[in-house]
């Protein structure tokens, strides 16, 4: 029954965007293979046990009412079968243990020559992403969306400043915890350009559910262009409304938390907004990027992510529109 159910459920789904069964990188492929192998072997063992359970009910017909008190030696044949089954169990387990060791080695070898290092820091409830570079002026800090060159291993150094989070992009690699006071290293690689979704996997408080992230894998030239663009200070507002919005932004509490490169806004406790409009989503994967969602998020962050650390800033309709117009221009 269970296996029949599994088939039906597999056919209807596999959206794949955030699935360990739809690997898009070498680490996830290795893991998916391992998952299928373990599943197959375990299913076979399970079926054998069920046959062994069902057989005496189906095959035998005698029913004993008086309890049998055994004399010594009557169970010899069963004893041999049980010992044999135990031996097979031990062999299977040894095999699976070795398989795990080898898979571990394969995974460890993936990122050994990574050219790009990205530092990912978990916050309640968003991701700070910093592209390391030997030249200080080429270090880029952004949030929630991670761009990587496709087909190249990338080294992530992950940690946290508040509680424990876990970085997990199932279609690229297994998860790794972000622990305050610890630096962990995770190597990822995407085989092909694409957008892969991930999510915090360790319970981290009120908005754990809405702590999403995206990996955007692009061909190397496109990635380099993106990096150079992001390194630029924020675009100056063009329209009058946007200009007013920019002024409002630095006058209002927004500036206490957010940074916008090239302006007086220098807060570091919340996501960097220098190029916010170039990202796919808002509020760590919660809303798709659009004018309406931007306005909704600023007007009522607690309605969208209850418990999030972004407070409601009182703005009238014009002020809200102005700030949204300004942020929309930050590409």
């Amino acid at each position, binding site marked *: 029954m269970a296996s029949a159910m599994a088939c039906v459920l597999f056919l209807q789904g596999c959206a794949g965007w955030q699935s360990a069964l739809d690997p898009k990188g070498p680490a996830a492929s290795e893991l998916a293979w391992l998952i299928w192998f373990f599943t197959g072997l375990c299913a076979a063992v399970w079926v054998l046990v*069920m046959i*062994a359970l069902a057989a005496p009910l189906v095959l035998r017909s005698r029913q004993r009412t008086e309890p049998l008190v055994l004399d010594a030696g009557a169970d010899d044949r069963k004893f041999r079968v049980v010992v044999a089954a135990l031996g097979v169990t031990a062999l299977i387990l040894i095999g699976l243990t070795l398989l*795990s060791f080898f898979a571990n080695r394969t995974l460890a070898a993936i990122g050994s020559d990574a050219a790009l290092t990205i530092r990912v820091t978990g916050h309640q409830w968003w991701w700070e992403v910093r592209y390391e570079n030997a030249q200080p002026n080429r270090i880029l800090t952004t949030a929630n969306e991670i761009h990587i060159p496709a087909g190249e291993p990338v080294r992530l150094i992950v940690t946290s400043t508040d509680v*424990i989070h876990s970085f997990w992009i199932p279609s690229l690699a297994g998860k790794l915890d972000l622990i305050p006071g610890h630096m962990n290293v995770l190597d990822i690689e995407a085989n092909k350009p694409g957008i892969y979704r991930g999510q915090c996997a360790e319970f981290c408080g009120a908005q754990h559910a809405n702590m999403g992230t995206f990996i955007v894998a692009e061909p190397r030239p496109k990635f380099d262009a993106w990096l150079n663009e992001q390194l630029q200070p924020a675009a100056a507002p063009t329209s009058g409304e946007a200009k007013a919005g920019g002024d409002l932004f630095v006058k209002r509490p927004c500036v206490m938390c957010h940074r916008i490169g090239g302006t007086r806004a220098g807060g570091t406790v919340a996501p960097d907004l220098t190029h916010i409009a170039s990202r796919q989503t808002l509020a760590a994967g919660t809303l798709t990027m659009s004018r309406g969602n931007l306005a909704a998020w600023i007007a009522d962050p607690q309605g969208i992510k209850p418990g999030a650390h972004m407070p409601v800033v009182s703005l009238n309709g014009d002020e809200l529109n102005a700030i949204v117009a300004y942020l929309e221009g930050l590409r």
Partner: protein
Amino acid sequence: MSSADLTSERDLPQRDTAGKGDLAPERDGPRDTGMDDASLQRWLTQTWRTPSGIVGALSSVDHKIVARRYLITAFVFLCLGGLNAVAMRIQLSGPRRGLIGPDLYNQLFTMHGVTMMFLFAVPIVQATGIYLVPLMVGTRNIAFPRLNAFSYWIYVSGGIFAWVSFALSMAPDVGWFAYVPLSGPEFAPGKRADVWAQMITYTEVSSLAVAVATIVTVLKQRAPGMSLDKIPLYVWAMLVTSFVVVFAMPAVMITSTFLILDRLVGTHIFNPAEGGDALLFQHLFWFFGHPEVYIIFLPATGMVSAIIPAFARRPIFGHLGLVLSLIAVGFLSFGLWVHHMFATGLPKLGASFFTASSMMIAIPNGLQIFCWLATLWDGRPVIRTPLLFVFGFFFIFVIGGLTGVMLASVPLDLQVHDTYFVVAHFHYVLIGGSVFPLLGAAYFWFPKITGRMMSEALGRLHFWLAFIGFNAAFFPMHIVGLWGMPRRVYTYPAELGWGNINLFITAGAALFFLSFVLFTFNLVHGAMRGVPAGDNPWDAGTLEWATSSPPPSYNFARIPVVSHVEPLWAEREAMPVATGLRVDARELLISTVAEARPDIREKSATPSIWPLLAAVAVGATFLYSIFTPWAIVWGAVPIAVTLIGWFWPKGDPEDEE
């Protein structure tokens, strides 16, 4: 001494007792030697009765009365925890449902975990042991009966403490595991995490008390002749479990105490900024948390080992092998806590060691399965409700065990850790491995406890509802977990395509919950209207079936003498008995550890209200201590007073009545 010698001796060996004084106390009263049955029962009823009235009820130290309260209380907590689960499943039945917000949802899943682990699973297996172990080893009461009564009051007040805090929206919302720093002073303001910390420490006191009482009962109060190789497997399982409790529970009590120190006193044990370490919490917690699984599972294997022989109509196959695997599982359970922490980035070599040790525990567990199957192979078993639940256990638990093998693999775990795959896995292990055997045990021992049978027809219906509901609810969780759904999320986006499968899961959960409604009806109906059961309705072989159903307050009119693992099957006519105990005082027969030779006669405690008062004092201290550390200082006074009352005077316990 062989058991044959003992059976020929119908009286306690009258040894030279010079210098011991135990066998010939100063005030000697009438003994059961040679007394006729009617007057013997009159004497014993008078001696062992629980006083009437409310004070009498509150001061009872009869292990059966305490166990019944435990069982009913734990069942109530099961229902409450189940309602939490239903609420969560309704919220998760579709993407972006707005029924339950994150604040309530996080309290819900924390309370679900806390309730199921600390207020249901551990107490109910221990309560079953409190009821059955003294009967199965053939003694008149559990060891330390007042401590046993105390443990119940501690447990029930701890549970009420947790649930009242939930009603006041003060329930912990940091997960049942309460990882720091999330539960630390900086990120969990308010009193919620303090409630978690103190409630854990507090209720585990009761768990430890029961474990100690069980160990002593099994090792020192066994009927004459019940040498180590003749102890029923269920009793072995409870013995091993109790040792695991004794070694595991202090770890979680240390964890919760460190946490409350950080929160209340301002220590920095877990604060990395001040040289502490957040990972230390996880090591301590899982050093308890993994054995916890086996604390829940081992007693269930004991139940399976009791039910299978009764319906397969033969002694269990591989008794010695099963005993050794129980002990091996108990040991190994302490060596694999790190497999809960593979994603924390521990050194690879260390993690691989825990892969190997986690895989290894499948070997003794496999042996248990093979021995049970071998027992069933011998002849066609009589299929009644208890055995049906054992079949359900096989079907479900084996899946849970195999996914456990998957989780033991470091690389594989990195994909499925903290996803619904893990949620599916441990519900397969805990519900399949423990709740299904417990339900089977409920049908199996219900006639012993109440003297009446539960309905067989309703029992079968209950089984099928529970079996189908369970699998429909939890099997798809494996799949949605592999599709990337993390656990402990109160909502999820529609784009990920998890909506339909979650709706299906919720429907299964509703069916599973419904099966418990039916079970509750069957319990109540059985207790009130069930067919009278007789002493031994299943014609089973162990000692608890030798006495009447329900057993009298003194359990056995005369202490049986055992010469076989299934003494009732070996002695189809009359049980040999040992006599020589006083009937005007609560005397127990204490036997030697290995061979169960009669050793001394020992008085068992009389009813007392002090265990309840002591529990109230301890409870008030813990409750107060979530507000100020000074509670420990002030609370010491009433605790001391009640303990003095409990142990005062130091003479003959008869004087206290």
